[in-house]
């Protein structure tokens, strides 16, 4: 099985499109960090402007943690596209290249093939988020140093002490991997259905956008649907920046995301297992 996963990873990184996500992050994150280094004080002033009427602020709130939080907040909306570029091509790409028959005549079961592809897709997702974390925190540390983290969530301003931040980021990034894993799983499912990678990429993004719009519109009927949309749980990472942690909601959201991954993979496996290869 490990050999199969290695082979799938090799195939992923052999394609130039797999590097788009890494390049995008490698370019965007430094640009954002340099820009915030110059004008990040305005963001902090904007968040705290009402408080600054009554309070005098001392210290360095513009640091790697603040910038990394902002980047994570912004990019979790855009990273799904970078993931679908690869996940949508995992199965459909074999069809486009005409290598399905070559692959399936090998002495490995369809389940092993689909599982190795899926795991390789999840590894790619993990590596993308890892790069995001390393660039955000690492480059931010070099440019801005560390300090306390100020977070504005649900109408509450929370300032986290220096020794109370890293573990939150670690868990937040893990949760982001899980959220993006659902995106990868959805793209993987569509990839099992079609023979061209474009379809899964666009379909996955369309579903994410539609779900996000439904969640954003403040209408009762949409609000009742919201708990059933996986996009409602993609922001679970931000719950690690609550004080105190809402453990129940975090566990619940994590289990829902895991259930989505398992369900989507299960469905994709079934479709692939039953698929009649005609190309």
């Amino acid at each position, binding site marked *: 099985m490990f050999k199969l996963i290695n082979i799938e990873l090799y195939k992923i990184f052999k394609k130039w499109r797999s590097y788009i996500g890494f390049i995008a992050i490698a370019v965007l994150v430094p640009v954002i960090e340099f820009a915030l280094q110059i004008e990040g004080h305005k*963001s*902090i*002033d*904007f*968040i705290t*402007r*009402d*408080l*600054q*009427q*009554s*309070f*005098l*602020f*001392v*210290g*360095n*709130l513009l640091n790697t943690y603040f910038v990394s*939080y*902002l980047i994570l*907040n*912004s990019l979790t909306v855009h990273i799904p596209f970078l993931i679908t570029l690869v996940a949508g091509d995992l199965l459909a790409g074999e069809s486009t290249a005409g290598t399905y028959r070559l692959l399936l005549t090998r002495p490995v079961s369809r389940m092993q093939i689909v599982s190795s592809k899926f795991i390789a897709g999840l590894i790619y997702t993990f590596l993308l988020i890892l790069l995001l974390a390393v660039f955000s925190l690492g480059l931010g540390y070099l440019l801005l140093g560390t*300090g*306390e983290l*100020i*977070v*504005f*969530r*649900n*109408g*509450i*301003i*929370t*300032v*986290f*002490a*220096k020794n*109370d931040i890293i573990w939150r980021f670690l868990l937040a990034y893990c949760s982001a991997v899980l959220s993006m894993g659902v995106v990868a799983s959805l793209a993987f499912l569509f990839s099992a259905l079609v023979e061209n990678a474009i379809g899964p990429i666009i379909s996955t993004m369309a579903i994410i956008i539609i779900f996000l719009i439904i969640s*954003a519109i*403040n209408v009762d009927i949409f609000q009742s649907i919201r708990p059933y949309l996986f996009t409602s749980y993609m*922001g679970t990472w*931000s719950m690690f920046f609550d*004080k105190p942690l809402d453990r129940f909601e975090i566990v619940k959201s994590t289990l829902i995301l895991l259930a989505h991954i398992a369900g989507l993979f299960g469905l994709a496996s079934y479709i692939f297992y039953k698929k009649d290869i005609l190309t």
Partner: protein
Amino acid sequence: MKKIFFSLFLITAVCFSQSKDPNLIIKNLKDNFKKVKDYTADVDIKVDVSFLKVPEMKAKIYFKQPDKTHIESDGFAMLPKDGLYTSPLSLLNGEYTAIYSGDELFDGHKTYVVKIIPLNDKGDVILSTLWIDQSENLLRKVESTTKTNGTFVIILKYDNNNFPLPVNIEFTFNTSRLKLSRNSMEEDNSNNNKNIPGNSTGKVFLTYSNYIVNKGIPDSIFLTKKKTLKN
């Protein structure tokens, strides 16, 4: 005869209607604080506000007469602007009218109650009430009403040292006028530009320690901007 008695009555009434001079009381308060030429102190800051979750903070305060202040912190710290955290007399800068309002027992101390009305319209404070310790000429309590931030109350506690510098300041203020506006960090759409609900007062507790008084502080320290996020 009736005219003599009436005149005597009037003179007595005038004499006893303003038995304490508020300006003298304020002068004694200021003179007492002027014993402090400069000081440094460590301050622990604890914030108790419903919409603000902040760990206990530490800062170092430098003060030099008449009004030079500098604050340093290794990490983040926030101090109430109106909290008199450097000089209890910062309320008494500028022109004002002082009115003696009576005596009151506050926190076990006999105090003069003096109302201060700033004559300058440009300031934020409309009216301040000071509770001044009669025997020690210390400021024990301040209640101020401002144009923009409502009313705040400051309670000062001292220990038995030679200088009129507090060891504890409790600052209570009105939070209901504060708005926390939505911004790029905020994900939840249901909290756009709303006033803070729930408990409408907040408190900040300042605890001072390690006072170093009248040892001399160079002016260059007050020119340092390094540790100040925003003044």
